[in-house]
């Protein structure tokens, strides 16, 4: 595991807690789906927690992210609150998006969350535009776009990466290569080893990192974010990982080799960080246990709060489609 010195015990504590929060949140979400409190689907981030946490730790106030169908982990790592997240995925009026978006569409502008996107690779060009626009406005903000291995085969990945490169947009592309797209193994999707290789075709660096090592991810992310912030342009980070749950609540059957799954369970990023913290004396087993329980409790509280929240009023279904307009005055109203 990557050297720990760079980080304070408190920060490590926090990283461990956040990863446990994500794990607990997804476990609860799957329960709520089974109990029919959640419609549509849930795509658990379980097993990939180190990536969201490692990357978001490299960000600062004012930075933004875009996310995917598998977005809960990114939200939590970016600092969104569990209550309005739970409320959103259970379709309540108190959700971040008033129940209009659901699990695949959590947006929280005040936390720098530009939005999750249920169109695979759909938000990559948006991330480039946001990054460029922030710089145009004189802000030194960075935008991170999370996406999966399968998303790297979409045309918009290519267009967005190339556009970001020629415009030197302060964006970081984070490809979470969990080696599967639903039932399709990466070997059917690409004929190369590392998606990161593609960065050379756009003229910026591509880096491969162990996506189950939160400290390694954070180190790579800090370099990429620094590069973007200083105006040198984008980076493509490929984090190798594995989802240790089925693709989604709506697609429970999992044809993947159980041995493959078992091997990866041993690489569970939470377990790895935990062992590392204990070995290096940063935390005790008891402390880790405590953090795990704290995460559990927060998630239970969020779920209870959400389920007590009101459903949206049907009559409001046609609100929030269009922003108010006043063409007599330039500049935005909302």
């Amino acid at each position, binding site marked *: 595991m990557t050297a720990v010195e760079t980080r304070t015990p408190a920060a490590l504590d926090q990283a461990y807690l956040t990863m446990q929060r994500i794990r607990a949140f997804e476990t609860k979400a799957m329960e709520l789906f089974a109990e029919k409190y959640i*419609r549509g689907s849930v795509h658990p981030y379980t097993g990939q927690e180190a990536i969201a946490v490692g990357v978001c730790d490299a960000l600062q106030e004012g930075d933004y992210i875009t996310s995917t169908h598998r977005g809960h982990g990114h939200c939590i790592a970016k600092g969104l609150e569990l209550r309005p997240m739970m409320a959103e995925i259970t379709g309540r009026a108190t959700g971040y*998006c008033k129940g209009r978006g659901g699990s695949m569409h959590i947006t929280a502008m005040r936390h720098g969350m530009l939005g999750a996107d249920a169109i695979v690779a759909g938000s990559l060009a948006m991330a480039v535009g946001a990054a460029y626009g922030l710089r145009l406005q004189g802000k030194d903000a960075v935008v991170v776009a999370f996406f999966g291995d399968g998303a790297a*085969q979409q045309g918009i990945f290519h267009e967005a990466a190339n556009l970001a490169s020629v415009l030197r947009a302060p964006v970081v592309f984070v490809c979470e290569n969990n080696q599967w797209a639903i039932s399709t193994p990466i070997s059917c999707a*690409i004929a190369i080893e590392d998606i990161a290789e593609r960065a050379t075709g756009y003229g910026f660096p591509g880096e491969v990192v162990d996506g189950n090592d939160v400290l390694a991810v954070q180190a790579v992310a800090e370099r990429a974010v620094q590069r973007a912030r200083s105006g040198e342009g984008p980076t493509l980070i490929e984090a190798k990982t594995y989802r240790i749950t089925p693709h989604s609540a709506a697609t429970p059957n999992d044809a993947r080799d159980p041995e493959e799954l078992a091997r990866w369970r041993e690489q569970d990023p939470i377990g790895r960080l935990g062992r590392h913290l204990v070995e290096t004396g940063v935390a005790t087993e008891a402390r880790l246990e405590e953090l795990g329980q704290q995460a559990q409790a927060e998630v239970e509280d969020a779920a209870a709060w959400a389920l007590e929240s009101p*459903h*949206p009023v049907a009559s409001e*279904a*046609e609100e929030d489609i269009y922003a108010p307009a006043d063409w007599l005055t330039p500049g935005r109203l909302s």
Partner: protein
Amino acid sequence: MSTVAVRELTMSEALNEAIREEMAIDPTVLVIGEDIARHGGLFGVTAGLLDEFGAERVIDSPISEAAITGFGTGGALIGCRPIVELQISDFISLAMDQLVNHAAKWRYMSGGQVSVPLVVRGPISNGIGMAAQHSQTLEAWFVHAPGLVVIMPSTAYDAKGLLKSAIRDDNPVVFLEKRLLYSRKSPVPADEFVVPIGVADVKREGSDVTVVAAGASTHLALQAARQLAREGIELEVVDPRTLKPLDIDTIAESVAKTGRLIVVNEGARAGGFASEVVARTLDHVPISELKATPLRVTAKDTPIPYSASLEREVLPSLDDLLDAVATVMAS
């Protein structure tokens, strides 16, 4: 020499049979799409095809909707009959250029030299909380694309017969399946049959109001018809089945008989297929022959929201249709 053997099949089983039968008859038929081989399609429509016909003809594709649509068009140009599955029909928005500027136009632009026997199929996935990007009903876009054939079946029988015709048809076909109907069973003959493209089906005869409704809306119309029959109001439910080319004769004949037209459609209200049916019918039935102003019962003009209460509010309901019938019967 057809027998009377009839099974109850779900729509996905019926679609699966259609593809299997055509692949068995015609070695140029191939299927490509995301998770359609190993997994057999998210909704089972392509289940078992990989084992039966092999990986050369049953292809799990990368997530590249535009490319697999173009791939299908290219294969069609040189004599294959590709079936492209888009996992959710909303994703056709990623392939509009390949579908409309290429598949739909290639024959015309070539002066009739080529034909494009392509099927692009996928589910309409509203009603189950998949939210705005997975719940659209976009047939109006395809109806507005000359060169395309657009099909939306409402029963397992129509689904099988029309998909077989679509595969055999030498034109690019957009085949839209309602996800909530996949598991719905209805009788399907065991014998080989096809359902002709471009021919509407009067799913129920009635004298008072013509209700034009395809796909899931057909069932809403039939439900309303059963209920209203008790009150002595007889709806004639015309299921166009093919939306382009539209069987306007059957629709016009019915409207000429009833003098009243209601079109039910789950697409967003503005610019939806219902508007087309109303305008098109008026080309054939002058208002002087109408007893009431034609009405549209559609989804509201909004994106589809996630929450159940909101989604229910946005999609057309039985009550909406009953109100519309009351209105046209009152005038």
